[in-house]
């Protein structure tokens, strides 16, 4: 069975999505257990796969037994083994945490929502696991379409925001498709490893250059790299809480993974960093992305929207880190994929809890929240510390690597941008914590304690939140292990 993990982790959720759709007709209450089972199997397979990769090295799984370049191969090495594990665990925890929230916000549409949820996870896992460039496009679109549908189920402006997301997302995916087309023309193959073998003799050709740039821009659109980010804040803010907390932590990170895969495996680092001279401009773009993300977040008085701008800044971290061109920077970028997925999940689960109990999540609605929802706010503080970058939470360690990489590469602007972003994050989060903690004001020594009744979110929402918050600290503590045992092998030896 363990031989089939790569297939299981995509096929089981895919079929389950159809089953859930059908089950929804019969009895709505069947949907949640089926979804949990599907994602549980996917999570189990991903972790099992990661352990196998740690033992055996890279695994190639030929779907249907067909050899590449005829057939589609799934290629799992240290890099995507790690990302697979993270994606599946995040999706699983989020599903459990969102059950009540889905029932509250979506009413009679829960069955289609669960089906789309599982379908989206299928797409994400497939993108990470696949070793075929065109297969990646297909899964990319599966992810995107189910994402559009889920986000559109929100209220108010959700449909319009999603439509804008759709336009931008389609442009991005089409650019990627175009890039793959160019690659196919010059190499005749769609398998990533195969392409990587054929390309070196063609590095001088304009077609390869064009392919790389076009693929890169397409992936940038999908990951909301400034200035192609305009779709993200509205789309993520107006969607239902459960959809936002699935999509926000995962989709942009998986796109970062795709970019790193393109750099490291398809077009080797030799090409990306040495032959093309675009590393420095891209790092500058990343600095601007971080800066703008921070500034735009400051302007927001709505908690959820503020978090989405922070995502834009975090994407800047990872793009800059990957393009620094040295080992520390790339380690930081890959580590940040893991860390940011967890941090964003924690933050969005907090927002989910708040949305479940209160009417909204604008700053004005959050007054005195510490008394009403102490546990949720406790997790929020942990998430805030991680995003700011305070040890021993995981956010500190990825910042460590990113800044080290910046120093080693001599890109001090990037270091300054990272530090600036940390400082802005301090302001952003303590502003929120202040509002939750202080208001309504008590007088002087607070002799009249208003005993506000605690109105915490239900346990199914709290327990996964705690697990994620604890995970933030644990992943931070085990950074050394993660870097030495996994990420070290994910980066080719050639990068110093």
């Amino acid at each position, binding site marked *: 069975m363990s031989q089939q993990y790569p297939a299981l982790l995509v096929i089981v959720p895919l079929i389950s999505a159809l089953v859930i759709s059908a089950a929804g007709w019969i009895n709505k209450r069947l949907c949640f257990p089926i979804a949990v089972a599907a994602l549980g199997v996917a999570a189990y397979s991903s972790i099992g796969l990661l352990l196998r990769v740690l033992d055996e090295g890279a695994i190639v799984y030929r779907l249907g037994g067909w050899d590449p370049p005829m057939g589609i191969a799934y290629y799992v090495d240290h890099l995507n083994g790690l990302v697979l594990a993270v994606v599946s665990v995040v999706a699983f925890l989020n599903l459990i945490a969102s059950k009540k929230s889905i029932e509250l916000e979506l009413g009679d549409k829960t069955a289609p929502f669960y089906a789309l949820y599982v379908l989206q996870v299928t797409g994400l896992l497939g993108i990470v696991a696949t070793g075929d460039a065109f297969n990646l496009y297909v899964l990319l679109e599966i992810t995107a379409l189910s994402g559009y549908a889920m986000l559109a189920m929100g209220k108010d402006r959700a449909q319009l925001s999603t439509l804008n997301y*759709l336009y931008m997302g389609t442009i991005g995916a089409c650019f990627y498709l175009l890039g793959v087309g160019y690659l196919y023309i010059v190499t005749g193959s769609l398998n990533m490893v195969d392409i990587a073998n054929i390309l070196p003799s063609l590095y001088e050709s304009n077609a390869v250059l064009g392919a790389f740039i076009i693929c890169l821009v397409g992936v940038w659109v999908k990951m909301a790299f400034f200035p192609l980010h305009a779709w993200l804040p509205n789309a993520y803010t107006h969607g239902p809480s459960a959809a936002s907390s699935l999509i926000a932590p995962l989709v942009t990170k998986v796109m970062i993974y795709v970019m790193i895969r393109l750099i490291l495996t398809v077009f080797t680092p030799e090409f990306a960093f040495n032959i093309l001279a675009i590393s420095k401009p891209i790092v500058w773009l990343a600095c601007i992305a971080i800066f703008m993300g921070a500034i735009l977040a400051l302007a927001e008085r709505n908690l959820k929207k503020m978090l989405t701008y922070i995502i834009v800044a975090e994407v800047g971290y990872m793009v800059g880190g990957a393009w620094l061109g040295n080992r520390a920077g790339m380690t930081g970028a890959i580590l940040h994929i893991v860390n940011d997925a967890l941090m964003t999940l924690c933050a969005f689960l907090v927002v989910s809890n708040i949305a479940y109990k209160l009417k909204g999540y604008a700053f004005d609605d959050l007054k005195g929240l510490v008394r009403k929802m102490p546990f949720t706010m406790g997790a929020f503080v942990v998430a805030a510390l991680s995003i700011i970058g305070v040890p021993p939470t995981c956010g500190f360690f990825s910042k460590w690597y990113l800044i080290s990489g910046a120093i080693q590469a001599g890109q001090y602007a990037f270091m300054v941008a990272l530090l600036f972003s940390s400082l802005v994050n301090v302001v952003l989060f303590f502003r929120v914590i202040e509002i939750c903690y202080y208001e309504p004001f008590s007088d002087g020594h607070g002799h009249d304690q208003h005993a506000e009744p605690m109105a915490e979110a239900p346990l199914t929402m709290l327990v996964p939140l705690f697990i994620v918050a604890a995970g933030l600290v644990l992943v931070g503590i085990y950074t050394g292990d993660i870097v030495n045992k996994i990420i070290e092998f994910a980066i080719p030896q050639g990068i110093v």
Partner: protein
Amino acid sequence: MGDLIQIVVAKYNYWIYITLMMIGLYAMIVKNNLVKKIVGMNIFQTAIILFYVSTGAKRGATIPILEHGHGDHGAGAHMVHAVDYINPLPHVLMLTAIVVSVATLGVALALAIRVYSRYNTLEEDEILAQIREK
């Protein structure tokens, strides 16, 4: 000048698809009406599909269907001269892409209907004005 015309003529499929892509992008960005934007998106996607298909074409080749396909008749029984047939792989890939394009079109139109039922208009500037008023 002569060189330029030669280049254009030789790679005319590229020029066509680039033009179509730009038309599509233009529609998506500049047009106000949501349905026109969706149409532009579709043109954009179709351009890429056409590009792919065009790369499979070869001079003097025929469609890739074997006439006497009898199954396993030994390895060398029916040797296929690949050079006589146009490349079927891009066609296959583009079948997938067409399906994706149709699906996207469907989702987009569904969203447009919902937007219309809520705001009673399909013009983006009017919708934004309504949102700002709230």
